[in-house]
């Protein structure tokens, strides 16, 4: 009973955070800020996937969260590397 309310609250918080990040992505002053917004969006997506796993009571979604974590990190590093060096794989 308490758990359902806490789950709804946490899902709402992370969903709102995702919307704020999207707004940041459109209004960011510099390019690294946009990359940071995308990185935070992928982190919040991981949290939402984990919370959905709690709601449906299955361990299957952890793999989806793991893939999300990997691709999010690689995307962030690739964007930053492109900004720094002008190419990703040298």
């Amino acid at each position, binding site marked *: 009973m308490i*758990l359902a309310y806490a789950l709804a609250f946490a899902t709402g918080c992370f969903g709102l955070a995702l919307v704020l990040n999207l707004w940041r992505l459109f209004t960011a002053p510099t390019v*690294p800020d946009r990359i*940071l917004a995308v990185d935070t969006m992928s982190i919040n997506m991981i949290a939402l996937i984990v919370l959905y796993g709690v709601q449906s*009571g299955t361990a299957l979604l952890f*793999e989806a969260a793991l893939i999300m974590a990997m691709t999010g990190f690689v995307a962030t590093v690739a964007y*930053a590397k492109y900004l720094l060096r002008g190419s990703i794989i040298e």
Partner: protein
Amino acid sequence: MMLALEIAISALLVLGGIFGLIGSIGLIKLQEPMQRLHAPTKATTVGVGTALIASSADLVFQTGTVTGQEVLVAIFLFLTAPLAALYLAKAHIFGTIDRATLPDPQTGTPWATLDNRNADGRSAGAANKTI
């Protein structure tokens, strides 16, 4: 016992949600780029960390199965979040700093990020363009 565990899991979920939200608010509200880097990394470690702990505790509590996958996700996130932050800080620094004021790295070669050669000596193309 059951109620105490449920309350503990709920508290972890609420804490994680609040931290995730604070991270995104900080991303918007803070003034300096380096300050903006600070907020979402806290959302990563505390927000997602507590959500993962609550999730695995709930799974043990509900079905009795113990999985190692959430530990993997947590380890991966805690390893990669500082690296991503480091790369973004580097991108910010090299984008804004006056390159004439950089100290000599004392190695006989230029700064690695600004070095215009590849390992095989070819030109790296647009490496020295301004961000």
